[in-house]
C-alpha cells in the first residue's frame, strides 16, 4: 500500500463520522415515549378525529383552526363523525389533554420538534 498510514487514517475518520449515530447511541435503548392520556381523555374515548389522523395531521388542523378563528371568525369545527367542536387549543384540546408534558412535549422532544404554540397560548398548570 502506498501512503497507507495517511489513507487508513482518513478512512477511519470518514467511516467514524458516518457511524456517528451508532457510537452516539451505543448501549442506549431509546424507547419511543408512550402517550399518556388523562382520565378525562380516556373517558371521552375518541378525539376530534380518528387517532391515526390526529397523529399525523394535528399540526395542520391546529394551523387551520387558528387561521379560521383569527381571520374568519369561524368558531365551530364539524368533525367527520358529525359532532361539532369549538375550535380552541386551550378550551377544547387541553380540556382533555391537560397533561402537556406527557401528552405534547414528550413526543415533540423525541423527534426534535419545537412548536410555537406557547408563544401566545398560556401553558396549562399541570397538577403534578
Amino acid at each position, binding site marked *: *500500500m*502506498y*501512503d*497507507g498510514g495517511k*489513507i*487508513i487514517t*482518513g*478512512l477511519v475518520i*470518514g*467511516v467514524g463520522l*458516518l457511524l*456517528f*449515530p*451508532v457510537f*452516539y*447511541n*451505543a448501549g*442506549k*435503548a*431509546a424507547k*419511543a*415515549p408512550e402517550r399518556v392520556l388523562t382520565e378525562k381523555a380516556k373517558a371521552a374515548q375518541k378525539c376530534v378525529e380518528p387517532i*391515526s389522523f390526529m*397523529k*399525523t*395531521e394535528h*399540526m*395542520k*388542523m391546529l*394551523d*387551520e383552526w387558528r*387561521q*379560521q378563528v383569527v381571520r374568519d371568525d369561524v368558531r365551530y369545527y364539524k368533525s367527520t363523525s358529525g359532532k361539532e367542536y369549538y375550535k380552541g387549543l386551550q378550551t377544547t384540546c387541553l380540556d382533555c389533554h391537560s397533561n402537556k408534558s406527557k401528552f405534547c412535549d414528550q*413526543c415533540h*422532544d*423525541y*423527534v*426534535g*420538534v*419545537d*412548536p410555537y404554540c406557547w408563544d401566545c397560548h398560556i401553558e396549562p398548570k399541570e397538577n403534578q
Partner: protein
Amino acid sequence: MNFIFSIVLSSVVVLILVLIPWIGVGALKLDTLFGIIIPYIALFVFFAGIIGRVIGWARSPVPFRIPTTAGQQWSLPWIRRSPLENPKSTAGVVGRMIFEVLTFRSLFRNTKLQFRSGFRIGYEWEKWLWLFALAFHYSFLVVLIRHLRFFTEPIPGFVNLIEQLDGLMQTGVAPVEGFMLPSVMISGFVLLGAVTLLVLRRILIPQVNYVSLPGDYFPLFLITAIGLTGVLMRYVLKVDIVSVKELTMGLVTFRPSIPYEIGVLFYIHLFLVSVLIAYIPFSKITHMAGVFLSPTRNLSNNSRFVRHINPWSYPVPVHTYDEYEEEFRDKMIAVGLPVEKMPEEEAGSAEEEKE
C-alpha cells in the same frame, strides 16, 4: 449512447425502484424486509464497498507527480509563487484539498471556450456548474444533518440549531392554511431545485449532453425521487414520525423493530435511500471518498527537488559510462579516443608531448 435512451432508461429504473416498496409494503406487507433487512444490507454494501474502493486506490502506485499546476511554481525568491495552485509541500496540498473539498475550487475555475468577435477565441468564466454544485452539496449536507434527529436520542444541540436556521423563514404560517406545516425547511427545496438545474444542464448543453450516460442521469433522478418523497412526507402525505423514529433508532442501536403502521411513502423513501447508499461505492458518487485520493489534487509539485522512483521499475543491470571507460580506457587511449579520466602516467606523458 443516445441521450433520450439514457434518460428514459434511468427514469424507468427509478420508477421501478419506487414501485418495488409500494407493492412490497403496500400490498404484500413485507415491512420487515423493507424496514430492516434491506437498510442493513445497503449499509453493509456501502461500507464494504467504499472501504474496498479506497484500499484499491491505496494499492495503486502513483509513481510520478501529476498535480495540475495551475499557477506559478516555487522557483526563485523574487518570482511570486502560487502556493495553492502549485503546492510545493504538504501544507500547500492540505490547503488545496480544503478549498477543493469545501468550496469546489476546480469547478470554480471552469471556463467556456467560445468565439467572441469573428474568429477570435475567448475563454469565458462559467460559474453556473460551480454554483449549482455548491447549492446541491450543501443543501444535501444540511438535509443529512437534519435527519440525525431520527438517529440520535437525545438529539444533539447542533442538529436542533441547524433545523432552526433551516426553518428560519417560518413559512409554515401562510399562505395556504395548514399546507406548509410543520415549518418549511429551505434546504429540501434548494436541494430539489439544484438537482433540477443539474439535470437541465445535462440535457440543454450539447457538449455535456453528448458525454452524459445513464450512470449520470440515474443518481440525479434517484436523488430527485428521494427529495420528492421526503418533501411529500413532510408537508402533504404525512406519516407518524414518532413511529419512524422508533424504527430508525432500532436500526442504529441494533435492536430493530417494526412499529405499528407507518405509511407506505416512508418505506418508498427508505428503500430509495437504501438503493442510493448501496449504489454509492459502484458509481460516480463514490467521489465522496475519491476526491481525497485524486492525484491531480493531492500531490505536491516537487519533482524538481525530490526524486520519485517508479516502484514497479524492473531492476535493470546497467553499465554506466564510468564503468565502461574503466573497462576500455587502455584501448580507447590506444586508438586516440577522448577519455574523461587519464591514468596518472599517461596524463604526465601527454602533457610532455604537448610541450
